[in-house]
């Protein structure tokens, strides 16, 4: 659509008159919903709705952050000990992966704003790739925690062989050496990162849907709202991680040499 109408769109016509070649449905383009008068009205409403949703998401996550704050004030030592069990390197790598995916998401919006369909496809694919990369790294981290029995809640301290009924040579319970209440840290760790990972997974699904619509040619210079809004959601996922990373991984970090 964008190729065919690119020239025609430069004509300055008055409202409600359309050039030939534009897909019509009633007297408005297909992408403009019937109940909106103008494209800008639809765009603003969509963005407003998305921001309201994002505000809700922030408040939703803030409950966990408040819980984190309370438990950290009570069990500061346990939180530091639990934090030291996390891989700072993997956390930082994942932060960079997610930040990069945010960049590619922003560039996907930019490309679709300019009506460059294939470029949009490329950026969306890169974003999805980064999202999968994030999940893979997350899986590796979780795996180590499971090996060490650093599990949430009442499962804390359960050795791996108790879960899988498989013998595990050289197993030693890391959990047993940590201070009391460290299970509180790992409960919050798994809930917060797990909920965040759930958002990442949902985001991947939405990105695939947007990718399909982009390939189908739904978007143009004049209508790129879904790409824009999906990117907003993706940036929110990034925002949450921006806070999760230092709060979970970097509590009073002591370099391995100076441990004690």
């Amino acid at each position, binding site marked *: 659509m964008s190729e065919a109408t690119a020239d025609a769109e430069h004509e*300055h016509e008055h409202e409600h008159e359309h050039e030939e070649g534009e897909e019509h449905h009633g007297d408005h383009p297909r992408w403009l919903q019937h109940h909106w008068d103008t494209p800008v009205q639809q765009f603003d409403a969509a963005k407003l709705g998305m921001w309201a949703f994002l505000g809700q998401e922030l408040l939703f996550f803030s409950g966990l952050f408040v819980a984190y704050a309370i438990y950290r004030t009570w069990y500061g030592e346990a939180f530091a000990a639990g934090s030291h069990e996390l891989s700072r390197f993997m956390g930082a790598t994942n932060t960079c992966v997610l930040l990069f995916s945010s960049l590619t998401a922003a560039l996907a919006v930019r490309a679709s704003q300019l009506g460059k369909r294939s470029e949009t496809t490329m950026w969306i694919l890169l974003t999805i790739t980064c999202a999968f990369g994030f999940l893979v790294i997350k899986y590796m981290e979780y795996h180590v925690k499971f090996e060490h029995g650093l599990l949430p809640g009442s499962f804390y301290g359960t050795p791996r062989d108790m879960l899988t009924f498989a013998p595990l040579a050289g197993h030693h319970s890391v959990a047993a050496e940590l201070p009391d209440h460290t299970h509180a840290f790992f409960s919050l760790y798994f809930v917060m990162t797990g909920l965040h990972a759930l958002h990442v997974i949902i985001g991947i699904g939405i990105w695939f849907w947007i990718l399909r619509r982009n390939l189908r040619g739904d978007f143009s210079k*004049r209508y790129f709202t879904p790409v824009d809004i999906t990117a907003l959601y993706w940036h929110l996922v990034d925002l949450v991680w921006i806070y999760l990373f230092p709060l979970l991984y970097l509590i009073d970090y002591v370099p391995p040499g100076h441990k004690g």
Partner: protein
Amino acid sequence: MSEHEHDHAHDDGPYGADEVHAHVGSYRAYFAVFMGLIFFTLLTVGAASIHLGRANLAVAVIIASLKAALVCTFFMHLKDDNKFNSLILIAAITFIGVFFALTLNDVDYREKLDIQSGNRVFLQSGDQAPGSWVNPIKKEETPGEAGSAGSKVEPAPTTTATASAQPTEKSAEPSMSAGPLESAATSAMAAPSSSAAPAHTAAPASAAPHASAAPHASAAPHAPASASAHP
């Protein structure tokens, strides 16, 4: 790659001024923001390995907030967006602030009101402020029943403010491991029983028949205080 596309897509449709005029940021700007984000990530990792005591947390949160501001302003287009969207974000942050402030204030100042400064919240009655601290003497005297603790020790007309505060401590364990969070949650549940218990048991001050009928359902300390002053 680095073409300067700072233009707004001008009137390229039949809706003229009512077309969506997106502000198209330049590649360079987006990459600069990304590099800034990476820089702050490295900075926060570096800052975490410096021992600053409690300031470490503040530094980490400030750096994270700078990163969040970068993402919101540029990646999320708030800079060129309808200002109302920014207002929504600010409103959300404000209420998160309220959430944090009230909760942490409560958590931080439990126990301290009574023990450390001897604060008295109810100036008229001289009753102690409700908190998670349990007077051990009161506790011994009333092993099982809730509500009558405050009234037995103090001869002065006891407000049910203390009575409604006490069962909180009875039901929860006195040690910190029980968690002030739980005691806060149980106080709401304990309040109705405290309104029922003193009426039938020994509590002298609140034994007035209408005390049980009084609106004790609320756990707010002020309302019962005036209610039980009547007998």
